[in-house]
């Protein structure tokens, strides 16, 4: 039993996502199912989300039709699987500024949001470049940046400048500069509260898409393999992966790629009526299992 309960909650999926994007390497090697998910952390009188998902309004429908995103469900419905309402969320930790991770900024009316300062600074800088550089911006939805501005003006958007220990008790933030995005962040939950934790989980955002990024595809000859989509460097992705692995004593299953379809078979899980999955990474003292 740890201090926090931790669940990975699917909210949508891309059924045919190119493997070459998930795992740098040969092109045209097929597709995989790519769940869209966020992480719910509950305990210590806190309800924390790692990323927000996106809101399936206006551009969401356009997205679903154009890029194959399917089976989207709202946060109210997804969180209810764990007995939580969006208004209960106290803190949101944004791993990076892509729409499927921070496109739901206005869905959590009582939350404070944490994001890396570098992510915002470089996002805004990239927006000043010409359209020929739009690859650097990703899906920059004006609504997201306006929403972020509104939250900042309300004092609810907090920019973190680098690593930050104990943003909440036992929860650390780590900058992974110039990787998937300029200011990507991963989150460590030290679930025993110890500084040198023997019960840590790392919530990796999009720094890895799959466990294969940590192991390679040949179990007899393991290696780190970066994801195939970076505005920074593949080297930085590899060294970040190594750092994350080191922090969990080499147990790659504790470095959580939210887009990994196999999470549901690695940890206890259940399918919901909507065809989504609740994956239970840890259960705090006194908390009821949501997958039993």
């Amino acid at each position, binding site marked *: 039993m740890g201090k926090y309960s931790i669940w990975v909650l699917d909210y949508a999926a891309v059924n045919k996502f190119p493997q070459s994007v998930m795992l740098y390497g040969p092109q045209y090697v097929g597709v995989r199912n790519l769940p869209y998910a966020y992480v719910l952390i509950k305990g210590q009188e806190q309800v924390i989300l790692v990323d927000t998902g996106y809101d399936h309004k206006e551009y969401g429908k356009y997205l679903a039709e*154009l*890029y194959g995103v399917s089976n989207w469900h709202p946060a109210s419905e997804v969180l209810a699987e764990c007995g939580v309402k969006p208004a209960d969320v106290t803190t949101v930790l944004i791993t990076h500024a892509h729409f499927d991770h921070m496109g739901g900024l206005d869905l959590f009316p009582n939350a404070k949001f944490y994001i890396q300062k570098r992510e915002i600074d470089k996002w805004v800088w990239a927006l*000043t470049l010409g359209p020929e550089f739009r690859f650097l911006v990703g899906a920059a939805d004006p609504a997201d940046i306006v929403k972020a501005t509104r939250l900042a003006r309300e004092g609810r958007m907090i920019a973190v400048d680098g690593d930050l220990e104990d943003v909440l008790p036992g929860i650390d933030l780590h900058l992974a500069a110039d990787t998937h995005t300029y200011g990507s962040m991963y989150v460590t939950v030290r679930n025993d509260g110890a500084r040198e934790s023997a019960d840590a989980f790392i919530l990796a955002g999009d720094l890895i898409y799959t466990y294969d990024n940590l192991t390679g595809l040949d179990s007899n000859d393991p290696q780190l393999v970066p994801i195939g989509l970076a505005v920074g460097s593949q080297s930085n992705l590899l060294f970040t992966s190594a750092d994350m692995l080191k922090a969990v004593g080499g147990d790659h299953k504790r470095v959580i790629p939210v887009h990994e379809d196999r999470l549901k078979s690695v940890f206890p899980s259940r399918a919901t009526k909507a065809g989504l999955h609740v994956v239970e990474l840890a259960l705090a003292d006194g908390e009821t299992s949501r997958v039993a």
Partner: protein
Amino acid sequence: MSLADPLARYMCEAEPLHDFLRRGLIQLSGFLLKRTIAGPRAIVDYEPVEAAGQRIREAAEGLGSLRTPMWAAHHQRHMGAALVALESALAAALSTTDRNGDTLFHFIEEAERHLRAVGRATPGFEAVDFRQACCATHAGVAGFEARFAG
């Protein structure tokens, strides 16, 4: 529908202007976001404002000569209103009196509302560029093939 069709011609001519407006909005909002997060004592980087000013001027020039058929008037009206709001936002960003950003943010929100209305008025003018979404690389391949096939 060919480009001889007034509506088709309007849509082709209006699309880049919509993109100028969208980019101007993002840049001004980004400027205010950075300024707000950095706090009142931080040195302000005006590069996003300069970039936004350029986009807004390009949009203004284009909208001034846009040939608008009657059935696109609603669309064009929201484009014009977004431009006016962005011009006011630009002035506020350059002002020394709007220190807390209230005026700037007011006009940013107004411009966003009009751009959202533009997006609803005409499919293809959505206020987000999904072409570079991280989940959309396969669509990008399809787009590449479509552009260079044959």
